[in-house]
């Protein structure tokens, strides 16, 4: 019946409206989180920049060859760190990163590499488990607002096996946050540290101790002062590289978090818009249904009156008096 249809539509509109309220709330929360996440990224920059200067100065002075720096001789066992979110409702944020990681591993396995997976974000273990991949360690509940302590926990799971020689290389797949408008998935090599990735240290390489003293690389500039190292550069590097890896992980978490909030804001804003459109459509349909119902009712009344008029002269007089009002309704 017509009235039932209208009631049904009304209920659906209400339901879409409450969905819209929820997506709008998520959108606003995400928007405020983006600003804070960006602030944290900026806050980490002085530390990372400082470490990079120290690294750029120390690395060329370290004479001994070390596994920590440079290109790995043989890459068989890789530790892959994947950073995604705990929750969905953020568009393709999770699935794109996870698929990128999966592709990377498949390509590597074709070359005979083995992977050990360490993941951040609740969405990762379920994805990989479904594909029959074991997750060595899965962190969660840190991507909303990553702290340095979180990064340390992750880094120890990543740096430890590398330092102990259990893996030959550490790679990282995560979203990088360049600006509010630009985020992209990136694969980075965390360990061994590639000096080409450290600003100011590129090209110098290690094992060039004698050259290093004549011209200080990078930030020390034209002053050409001779650095005092304590402990010796080799030992210092053993401390610096893990510390830098920690900072890299921290930065990756921060950027992933900012990207996640951005993706969520975008997805939720689209959802809110969709809900609005849907409500408009539903309302239109509902109005038509209601109009139809009213029209039908009028038709019924008019039809009934006509029938009565024809049935007898007595009732004809009564009904005729009411008719003009009914027509205008």
């Amino acid at each position, binding site marked *: 019946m017509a009235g039932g249809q209208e009631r049904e539509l009304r209920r659906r509109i209400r339901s879409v409206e409450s969905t819209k309220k929820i997506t709008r709330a998520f959108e606003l929360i995400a928007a405020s989180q983006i600003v804070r996440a960006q602030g944290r990224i900026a806050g980490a920059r*002085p530390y990372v920049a400082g470490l990079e*200067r120290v690294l750029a*100065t120390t690395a060329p002075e370290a004479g001994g060859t070390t596994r920590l720096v440079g290109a790995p001789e043989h890459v068989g066992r890789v530790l892959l760190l994947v950073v995604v979110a705990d929750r969905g409702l953020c568009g393709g944020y999770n699935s794109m990163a996870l698929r990128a990681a999966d592709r990377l591993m498949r390509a590597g396995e074709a070359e005979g590499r083995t992977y050990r997976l360490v993941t951040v974000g609740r969405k990762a273990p379920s994805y990989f488990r479904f594909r029959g991949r074991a997750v060595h360690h899965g962190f969660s509940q840190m991507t909303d607002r990553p702290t340095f302590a979180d990064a340390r926990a992750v880094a*120890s799971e990543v740096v430890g096996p590398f330092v*102990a020689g259990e893996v030959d290389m550490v790679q990282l797949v995560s979203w990088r946050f360049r600006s509010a408008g630009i985020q992209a998935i990136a694969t980075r090599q965390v360990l061994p540290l590639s000096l080409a990735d450290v600003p100011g240290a590129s090209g110098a390489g290690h094992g060039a101790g004698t050259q290093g003293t004549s011209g200080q690389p990078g930030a020390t500039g034209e002053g050409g002062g001779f650095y005092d190292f304590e*402990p010796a550069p080799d030992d*210092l590097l053993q401390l610096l590289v893990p510390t830098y890896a920690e900072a890299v992980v921290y930065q990756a978490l921060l950027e992933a978090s900012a990207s996640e909030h951005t993706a969520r804001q975008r997805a939720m804003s689209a959802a809110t818009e969709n809900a609005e459109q849907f409500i408009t459509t539903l309302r239109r349909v509902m109005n038509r249904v209601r109009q139809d119902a009213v029209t039908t009712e009028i038709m019924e009344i008019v039809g009934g009156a006509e029938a009565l008029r024809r049935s007898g002269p007595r009732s004809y007089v009564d009904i005729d008096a009411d008719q003009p009002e009914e027509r205008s309704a």
Partner: protein
Amino acid sequence: MATPFHVEIVTPERTVYSGEADEVSMRTDSGEIAFLAHHEDFIGAADVTVVRVTTPGGGDGTEHGGEVRIAVHGGFVHVDQDENSVRILAGVAELAGEIDVERARRALEAAEASEVPATPQAAATHDAETGPVVARPSGSLLAMLEPDAPEAAARRARVRLEAAGAAAPT
């Protein structure tokens, strides 16, 4: 008297301290060290240590008559002669005023209670983990790789108490 120079104590989460100083003293892996203005270029590994920054003029509203104390839990010192600056990069650093003395005391007691039996074992796993790669396992490396080791926890707590100006028990 002394010309001031710039001091920065930077952690990944924030810049804990930034200002001018006459002198900065701290402990590195090889011992106590103090920096004055125009110290020559230096890079060192900072121990878990109290950094004392003597601010110029003294007594200009800062606590301890011109001395600012900061608990630094391992990191690196970078002295740049050209910039006339000392930059301390640390994972964690706290100003004296931010330290929860009670918590530090409790942490120290807890750490000392479990220190004696656990230390040799912690050292052993530590050696096994680092193996031949790290030839010289130092205090800061231990703090970095085994932050939960009671020995490391006790050191952190002692440094916190020292920075806060509270006496450690025993």
